[in-house]
């Protein structure tokens, strides 16, 4: 398969209050971004268990995005601080086992940042395309 033709499959965990709302705003504003990302709405980025990330890669995701409210603006006061700390550790762990660091990303997108969300998705897809399919953690049947 040629690298250009490869369409990465991405799972995005979006917090309900900021990033999912920001993604909604991108829609309301009729912005356009690649359809590679399937969103899963969670209440808070702080609720994203490291298991979710591993589970997604295990089931064949080529990239995983976790997006929450900006640090300091968490709807649940401090959930995103826990997310930031916990997921940075996950990122290190993924790198340690040999996964390309680009495959796992975190971002902070507020409900007013439809443009930012659009850009993040565009950049993420662009970065993943040259990497090809993720096989490191994928479950082999």
């Amino acid at each position, binding site marked *: 398969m040629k690298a250009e033709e490869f369409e990465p499959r991405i*799972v995005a965990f979006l917090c309900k209050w900021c990033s999912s709302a920001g993604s909604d705003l991108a*829609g309301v504003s009729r912005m356009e971004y690649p*359809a590679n990302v399937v969103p899963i709405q969670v209440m808070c980025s702080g609720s994203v*268990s490291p298991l*979710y990330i591993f589970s997604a890669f295990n089931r*064949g995701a080529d990239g995983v995005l976790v997006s929450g409210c900006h640090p300091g603006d968490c709807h649940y006061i401090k959930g995103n601080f826990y997310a930031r700390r916990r997921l940075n550790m996950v990122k290190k762990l993924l790198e340690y086992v040999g996964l390309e660091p680009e495959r796992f990303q975190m971002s902070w997108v507020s409900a007013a940042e439809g443009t930012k969300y659009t850009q993040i998705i565009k950049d993420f897809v662009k970065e993943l395309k040259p990497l090809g399919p993720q096989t490191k953690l994928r479950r082999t049947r």
Partner: protein
Amino acid sequence: MKRTGVFICHCGINIAGTVDVKKVAQELSQHAGVVHAEDYVYMCSDPGQNLIIQAVKDKKLDHVVVACCSPNLHETTFRNASKAAGLNAFRCEIANIREQCSWVHKDRAKATQKATKITKSTVEKVRRNESLEALSVPVTRRALVIGGGIAGIQASLDLANSGYEVILVERSPSIGGHMIQLSETFPTLDCSQCILTPKMVEVSKHPKIKLMTYSEVQDISGYVGNFKVKILKKPTYVDKDKCNLCDECTKVCPIVVPNEFDLGLTGRRAIYIPFPQAIPASYTLDIKACPGLLPIACGKCADVCDVKAIDYDMKPQIIEEDVGAIIVATGYDLYDKENMAEYGFGKIPDVLDGLQFERLCSASGPTKGQILRPSDKKEPKEVVFIQCSGSRDPENHCAYCSKICCMYTAKHAMLYKHHVHDGQAYIFYIDIRSGGKGYEEFVQRAVEEDGVLYLRGKVSKVFEENGKVKVWGVDTLTGKHIEIAADMVVLAQAMRPSQGAQELAKKLKLAMDKDGFLAEAHPKLRPVESVTAGLFLAGAAQAPKDIPEAVAQASGAAAKAITILSQERLYHAPTVARVFTNLCTGCGMCVQVCPYDAIALKDGKVEVNEVLCEGCGTCSATCLRSAIQVKNLSQHQVHEMINACLGG
């Protein structure tokens, strides 16, 4: 056996234009557990909802997925429809295939594939949902209002007159805010004090209002309907019940400091009453200015007080109150003149700001209503008013328009002409923004009846020369350089959120906008609500606004607070955390991370206080044994959703 029904909305062409809804329905009909899948042009319409209700009954569905717009819009609609069909509301979930799919993609095949995945993942979630009923909690039927300006006063009166107890907290010694400092108000030239003092008196006499001046909110905890507030009551060192307002104490006090009420145009003593109509009518001993409370340091005021009202032993008190709703009306301050390098850094005595000029015009002001310039107490014959001083200047100062300055500057120029008939008023402006009832006519009146000269342009420099205040500017309509040797200059300084509002916002967990004003929940549809349930915004704390707007917003905030206070009980989302005690080892990690202190250790296991829990799920991501999970969004559900998202 789970029997799930899937309903795909076309939303006219909003979804169907990009997503092949027939194909989505066909794919879903083959998904395990889905016994019914259909599409319809507008699911949210009555016929659309009836379609769902009928299908639930006919096909004996136990779960419903509606693939349509964002759940923020029609989740309630479809959950109610499911309820009407006899299902629990939580047996219905929304798959967002419009905002997060059809509206952001153009490729029909890819969008259809994505919409299918989103819908399948929602099916996987909903079939593992459980029936839940909303939790209910009793409501503390009293309110807290923070800030005793016109907005806080109006909100307090509206709440109290509706029969609810109100605690009005004001940090300065008297209520009245900035409005009580004003001389007259546009566009009617009503005397500001004359229209405000009746409301202030009403507040002080109202049996339902507990007024706490010289007090500050220290801490807040709890949630909508049941807040606990800690209020710091600073000592005034004067017993207001004993004080007979004889004013002997100020006569003997040796200390003079700038008077805040007159914005430094006059001085006051360390023991003072802010202004004659102050509510509560009592003196305050300013501990920062006073040489010391020990009689050995001074003690003159206590010596002359015949009624022994002065009590040096008064201590700060922390008062705890329970309230159900909170209105924040912390108001504004003017942008400091010291920031204005081009206008003399606030150092030139005859360059005043708008509020100082109000005091100068006021009958109760430092000059008893005569307009005399501060430096030599002479009547100024030429006065330059500069609008947008600090506003609409993103490079150097505030980017926004302070909204009220066009109007009050026209009023200032008019008042000046009414006092000094042979004087000349000049106004430098960028644009005149006079939207409002009678506002445009008011500006025209300033020009036509009072001969105010409007010059369109910015002032580049203000400086002192030979006892005059020289103003250099440009008239952009004629293109001419303008130089005015004025006797006085008045700056229409930008409005800023009041000092300390930021710290208070942090304590209340309120969001602020980029300029530091309190952020409303929605700019169009929820302008008086904050993002935190039970907290409402009123007045200039939210954005620059004039008196009628502040009053209207205050009444709006009071009405919103009443929607909570009028309830016997409030309902709380039941999607809260649950502990699997057989898995819990009692390590307590979840207790530490809970932002709401909703989890506690008891007998070696943790317990969730469902009323405090907001269902954020931070605990579940922390637990090493997955022993704590949020209802209807368990880790198992998310894993199955991930699976569906990646399938195909």
